[in-house]
């Protein structure tokens, strides 16, 4: 085999490996993205399960629209333990 033929074959092999490697990386990246999307979708679904039949804010403790405001004197009613 002539020296040029050997070099050509080696270059072709390296080129092939590069292409396969690129395709593999792309497939891997696509797999990771798909996995993430599926995880987000199912994660959301799992968290949403108990919301069935419920009101807003099932996934978190709902904060008040307005915090209590300071006042003086007696109250109309007591908030204490029972």
């Amino acid at each position, binding site marked *: 085999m002539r020296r040029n033929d050997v070099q050509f074959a080696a270059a072709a092999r390296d080129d092939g490996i590069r292409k396969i490697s690129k395709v593999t990386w792309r497939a891997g990246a696509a797999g990771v993205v798909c996995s993430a999307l599926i995880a987000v979708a199912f994660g959301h679904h799992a968290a949403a399960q*108990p919301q*069935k*039949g*419920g*009101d807003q*804010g*099932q996934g*978190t*403790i*709902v*904060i*008040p*629209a*307005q*915090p*209590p*405001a*300071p*006042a*003086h*004197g*007696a*109250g*109309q*009613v*007591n*908030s*204490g*333990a*029972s």
Partner: protein
Amino acid sequence: MTTLTTGTDTFSVFGTTATLLVSEPDMVEAARIIADEQLAAVDRACSRFRPDSELSRLNAANGAVTGVSDLFAELVEAALRAARLTDGAVDPTCGQALEEIGYDRDFAVLQADEQPRHRARPARRVPGWRSVQLDRKRLLAQLANGAQLDLGATAKAWAADRCAEVIAAKIGAGVLVSLGGDMAVAGPPPADGWRVRVTDDHAAGPEAPGQTVTIRTGGLATSSTTVRTWAVGGRRVHHIIDPATGEPAGSCWRTVSVAAGRCVDANTASTAAIIRGEAALPWLNEAGLPARLVRHDGSVETIAGWPHDPGPTEAA
């Protein structure tokens, strides 16, 4: 003044005191009729002290799948949601733990009974909320691992929310419903809001040590280790069970009050705060829940927008 234009009704329910405040005084009677109807339904569904309640039937089913009403399913769902949102700090499977420390009858009866009580067996972790299976669609429930439900932590607050919503919708007036100090408001509030005295004991007088605030929306709940206590084996115990130990929580807080978008959320957070102890401060802050926490020495911490309260230490 708000007090002159607000109708009030006070009555007994769930072994505690209920108060209705209605912005239209002539609507109080109508509000009471609606409240009675709603509260009776909740009692039939989830009283631990009624053998004919759905909760008693489920607890007695020895782990069998049991058909439940839509109302009971909603109450169980609210309890499971509270458990999930607090990482299990507020757990509905404390029924057995409460019975083992003597809370096996209506509290008024328990208090009147002066017989000395002792633990039947050592305390242990409760079965846990994941032992409760609920199929909302088919209205089926099942308890695993010997779990016994107690919905006391959430059902009263849930009932306050439900009463306030239904009353406001039906009579078109503003209303505050307090069930043993757990309160929900709905409809248009009075011009200067609903004035609430935050204190250890909901049954204390209007000038009880504490702080007065006004609320206009949502719910407000207070949990405390100083009320609903009794003696077991020579020591005082209370009804807030730490699921991790099956014992009454040994908290650094005497009393915790929390404001939230709904009463059931306020109660969930105040009960969890008692159980979490010091860790409750960053947890409530992060959740943005205005809260007032009282230590055993009476010193007060206010966070997340709750009005500053100097407490007895600074005020003295």
